[in-house]
């Protein structure tokens, strides 16, 4: 009978393990975050943050030394003028940390650990103050040493995107379907503006106001005084922040449509452009080219007329917004053979980066 008991016990254990395995990925999983300066690219891909030399694609440092599942990093790291690299953990430990961009060493005496939720969004650094939005619905206000300088500002809804500023006000989108305007001098919020749907991406600052897309599939223009209008629509959810370039606003939707809105005439510059699969990343405008990264894994350069100049498939899926470093466009695919690839304006791949084992 002992054998039967053991058999049953082990069958149940195997069943438990199978269920654990079948439940798939870890509780928290996401596509990578990316930022860059003229020397290095910084990529957050789960347990690790890597610094990569943009000249040759070689790893400069990684943080931390060994993986700890309590700490997971997916937000775009943010560089400050005083030489910090800021990022929060989306793992079960909600630490918000500061690293030395040159070495990867921690800079603060201890991480900020006052948030109740995961850090999915990047912070905004404005007037030597860190405005860090958290999924617990609060905007945390810290000094550059990681100390809270005011009580957290309750926004409402999970905050997944970085705030932006026009130099006077701070603007941020929330998953609570609203757009919020904060006066940084008083930390007072204006009345929230209904976007009609959750807004996982950042708003974009234009000449006289801010542009915000949402899951309502509309793009709204919002003036600093709160006046707002729907100026354009898409055919599906708008995820990434619109890209503002002089008098044109570029945006995309989850059906893979790419739009170019003439802000003077409020007309679309092209009729229909749907190159290859859903787009969550913001479009990147550099010179005369518009760079599009799609979930299907395509990295596409368009000209201003919407014609495809070149198209590359680095592998994997691309959800992360590409960034510019010197003359290179950096792309961070998800579930690809490498974590980062660099392309020049002609579409020639300069290097790829795979983390050291």
């Amino acid at each position, binding site marked *: *009978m002992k054998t*039967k*008991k053991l058999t*049953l*016990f082990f069958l*149940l254990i195997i*069943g*438990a393990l199978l*269920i*654990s395995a*079948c*439940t*798939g990925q870890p*509780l*928290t*999983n*996401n*596509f990578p975050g990316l930022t860059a300066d003229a020397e290095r690219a910084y990529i957050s891909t789960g347990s690790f943050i890597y610094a990569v030399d943009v000249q040759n694609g070689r790893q400069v440092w990684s943080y931390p030394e060994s993986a700890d599942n309590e700490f997971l990093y*997916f937000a775009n790291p943010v560089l400050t003028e005083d030489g910090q690299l800021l990022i929060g953990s*989306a793992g079960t430990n909600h630490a918000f940390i500061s690293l030395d961009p040159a070495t990867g060493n921690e800079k603060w005496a201890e991480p900020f650990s006052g948030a109740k939720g*995961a850090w*999915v969004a990047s912070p905004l650094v404005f007037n030597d103050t860190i405005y860090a939005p958290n*999924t617990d619905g609060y905007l945390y206000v810290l000094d550059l040493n990681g100390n809270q300088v005011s009580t957290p500002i309750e926004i409402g*809804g*999970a905050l*997944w995107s970085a705030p932006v500023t026009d130099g006077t006000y701070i603007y941020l989108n929330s*998953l*609570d379907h609203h757009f919020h305007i904060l006066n940084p001098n008083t930390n007072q919020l204006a009345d929230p503006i209904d976007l*009609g*749907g*959750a807004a*996982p991406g950042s708003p974009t600052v234009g000449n006289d106001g801010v542009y915000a897309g949402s*899951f*309502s*599939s509309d793009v709204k223009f919002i003036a600093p005084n709160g006046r707002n209008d729907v100026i354009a629509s898409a055919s599906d*959810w708008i*995820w990434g922040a619109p890209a503002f370039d002089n008098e044109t606003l570029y945006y995309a939707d*989850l059906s893979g449509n790419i739009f170019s809105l003439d802000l003077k005439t409020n007309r679309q510059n092209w009729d229909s452009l749907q190159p290859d699969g*859903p787009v*969550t990343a913001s479009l990147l405008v550099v010179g005369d080219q518009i760079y599009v990264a799609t*979930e299907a894994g395509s990295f596409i350069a368009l000209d201003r007329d919407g014609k495809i100049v070149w198209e590359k498939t680095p592998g994997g899926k691309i*959800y992360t917004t590409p960034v510019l470093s010197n003359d290179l466009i950096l792309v961070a695919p998800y579930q690809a053979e490498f974590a980062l690839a660099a392309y020049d304006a002609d579409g020639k791949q300069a290097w790829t980066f795979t983390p050291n084992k």
Partner: protein
Amino acid sequence: MWELIIVQPLTNLLLWIYDVLGHGPHMFGLAIILFTVLIKLVTWPLNASQVKGAQAMQELQNDKEWQDIQKKYAKDREKLAQEQMRIYREKGINPFASCLPTLIQFPIIIGLYQSIIRALSVTPLDMLKLARTVYPFQNVENIIPLNSTFLWMDLGRPESIQILGFGLPTLAVIVALTTWMQTKLTMPATSNPNDQTAQMTRMMSIYMPLMLGWFSLTFASGISVYFIISNILGIVQYAATGRANWRNLIPGASKQTSPAKK
């Protein structure tokens, strides 16, 4: 295929119930409870046949032929097992019937876990998966993000209540307790302490609560809500037949009344 047959319908059902309930605070917890009731209704015939099977097992203990072979082949386990299987076949009894509903729950549990995580969308990647999961008729733009608060819990995360600095996993304890109660209540009385089926069921009454308790400790608390409601409904369903063996819940009580011990 798994996605199409299990995860997508379950997620949409959950979202639909949540939308009907008004998608406010605590409503996702209520949606899980209503979802569990629906699943129980759908699997009612299966559970009913399990109840019948358990009853047949109980009646078998008093069957003269059954008792005879227990005595006759007491020292020949192989022959005893063969004879028992013969009687099972002749009487149309499935000796594992009491385990089947629990085992059949497994795909639902896995699907529900994936659906809850998908619906709550704690990361942008989850939200993207959700966007592809919802059926066109769902008014999902209005209802997401879902409010994951239910009573004191965040349904997307494992539950614990902080007491004196320690996290007490309340739901995991309740899940283990209700699972144990359900298994014990449906456990057939036996006059033979060497009855292998009864011993297997006794082992299940130990391992199943531990296993489901461990799941509750590890996974999103929405799963624990499902386990608890499912267990309670299972107990109610069995009690409604009038055959629930309540004495099994009292440690030692069943042994005292066991004829074999007299």
